[in-house]
């Protein structure tokens, strides 16, 4: 464009200098017009855009995370881009990441089940079973640790574990690196997202972007919270809300109006994120720790049999329940908390045991209302959001 403009000006000068202006006046008008037209486009001095593919489009985090949740702490070295999130979603759904190309992350984390699956323990490579229940994947940006035993602090670390686990995707990293480098699609998309050839570090960053971007915020519970919008809940659900958020306080007849669920599953995210306040706890499933949970990582006696308390958003679609999937229905879960807590467990959370080891003994009506309230936490928009679905 610069060259064309220079030639136009030279020609215009020549016409003006020659003196036969009447004859040249038409050409002068044409040239001036062309000059003006050529000036409408910006002259930045840059190489035209079609010369390369790396043009990441930044995503404002406020477009992802709702104001009601607040902005989480996000990794500064991995800002959201449309290309990065898309690449991460592709990798999440691609069985290429498993040794025999049969299993993807989405095999055990299915969107219609809030990214869990309806098995007590997932099945991986060659039918080998995992030791724990598949965890749901949403609102992960607010978490401080990952996995049931909280052993990993970032998602970019996390993704390498199931990829390499022998009973999950059973892949080796050198093999994965070579597969990605030879794949034409990933050559193109890594270039677009990170201006790099396919590599494992950027793979983990892309997957981190995708996983962080998955947000569930539109359940009726979220519309109701913190309790101003009563109309969105039915009468039973509202009664359930009072039980869920009420303190345990036995009257003279031994009846409690509240069940204290909110201590470990409270707030807009329906989850306690602080480990000390109930975010990591034993809920008295067994009289003594069977699966060591966090204790298996820290080797501390106080942590034996404790696990990360999950969010209860979308709980109605994430059966079976608990770290080992032992409860098949929400009713079984409620029965445990009402009548089956093992107060002898040495590490049961003080919040649960600080009422003299007395079972709640909720009435059937209370149990039904609680289940109704839990069902109001289902977010159909999230479960069907194409932004999180299989891109292939």
């Amino acid at each position, binding site marked *: 464009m610069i060259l064309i403009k220079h030639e136009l000006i030279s020609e215009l000068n020549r016409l003006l200098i020659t003196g036969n202006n009447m004859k040249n006046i038409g050409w002068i008008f044409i040239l001036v017009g062309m000059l003006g037209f050529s000036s409408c486009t910006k002259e930045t001095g840059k190489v035209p855009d079609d010369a390369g593919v790396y043009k990441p489009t930044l995503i404002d985090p406020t477009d992802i995370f709702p104001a009601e949740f607040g902005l989480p702490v996000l990794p500064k070295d991995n800002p959201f881009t449309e290309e990065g999130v898309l690449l991460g979603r592709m990798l999440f759904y691609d069985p290429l990441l498993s040794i025999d190309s049969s299993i993807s992350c989405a095999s055990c984390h299915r969107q219609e089940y809030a990214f869990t699956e309806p098995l007590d323990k997932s099945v991986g490579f060659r039918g080998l079973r995992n030791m724990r229940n598949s965890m749901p994947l949403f609102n992960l940006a607010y978490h401080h640790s990952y996995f049931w035993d909280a052993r990993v602090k970032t998602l970019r670390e996390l993704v390498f574990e199931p990829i390499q686990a022998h009973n999950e995707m059973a892949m080796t990293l050198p093999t994965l690196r070579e597969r990605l480098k030879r794949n034409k699609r990933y050559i193109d998309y890594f270039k677009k997202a990170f201006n790099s050839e396919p590599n494992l570090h950027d793979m983990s960053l892309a997957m981190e972007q995708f996983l962080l971007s998955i947000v569930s915020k539109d359940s009726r519970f979220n519309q109701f919270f913190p309790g101003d919008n009563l109309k969105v809940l039915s009468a039973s659900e509202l009664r359930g809300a009072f039980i869920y958020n009420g303190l345990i306080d036995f009257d003279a007849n031994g009846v409690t109006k509240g069940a204290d669920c909110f201590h470990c599953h409270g707030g807009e995210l329906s989850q306690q994120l602080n480990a000390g306040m109930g975010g990591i706890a034993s809920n008295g499933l067994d009289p003594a720790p069977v699966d060591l949970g966090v204790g298996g990582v820290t080797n501390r*006696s106080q942590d034996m049999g404790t696990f990360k308390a999950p969010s209860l958003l979308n709980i109605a679609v994430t059966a079976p329940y608990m770290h080992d999937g032992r409860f098949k229905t929400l009713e079984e879960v409620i029965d445990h908390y009402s009548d089956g807590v093992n107060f002898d467990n040495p590490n049961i959370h003080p919040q649960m045991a600080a009422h003299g080891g007395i079972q709640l003994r909720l009435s059937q009506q209370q149990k039904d209302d609680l289940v109704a309230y839990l069902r109001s936490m289902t977010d159909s928009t999230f479960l069907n959001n194409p932004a999180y679905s299989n891109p292939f």
Partner: protein
Amino acid sequence: MLKNRLIQSFLFAAVVAVFFSSCEPEDTDGGSGGFVEPTSELELAFVGQIADEPLPPKGQDIYKEKSEGESMMVTNWSFLMSNLALVKENGDTVQLGDGYQWADLTGTRNVFNYKKIPQGKYTGLQFTMGFDSATNHGNPQVWPADHPMNPNLNGLHWGWAGGYIFQAMDGRYKANAGATPGSFSFHTATMQFVTRYFLPLDLSIEGAKHRVAVRINADRFFGGAQPIKFADKSVSHSEGAHDELLMRIFLDNSLYAFRIYEE
């Protein structure tokens, strides 16, 4: 000629005036007239103890004696503060940071560094465990993600009921040496239990850095003139007649739990 000279002189004077007016020394610490107040750095630590001994490291099941023949172990202890400030000899206060802080005595968040503390003599440290009503019942998500007041960080917000938990102390106890451990849980909340603390201190801040430690004995919350026996009542969440009475005793006892030292 004279007129031109006058104009030139005026212009010259104007230029000189502009030149000197742009040469004020850099204002570093808000001092006026070019005076820069000397400042130091303060390290403020909140240290959890039982019976004047540091809390046992996490993972060690060590019970320490408290009143009423019982022994206790703290598994979770954190609290939120507002109006955190040093108090000068003349009663003026120097706010530390924005005045808010979250101390987790059983975690790793209990030492805080504050820069640019004006040098001079200080006679105390003040803070409020709790907040004014507008802050307590305001939208907690207005705080930045890494601010001590953000509930996604501190876990100390009731959500449904609105308002913060000002202090949470949880743990286990034994009624006697051979007893099966029980649990205790004391959560301070609601506006009636906002508590102000003033800790007397003889502190001269000069030089580069000072360290002040606030040592807090957990057992003193349950001892003193109104001892709390866990075997009788081991939980208070600050609401309901029984819980409110117990929380009042817990906080009255707490006034004797704090010691402050320059270290």
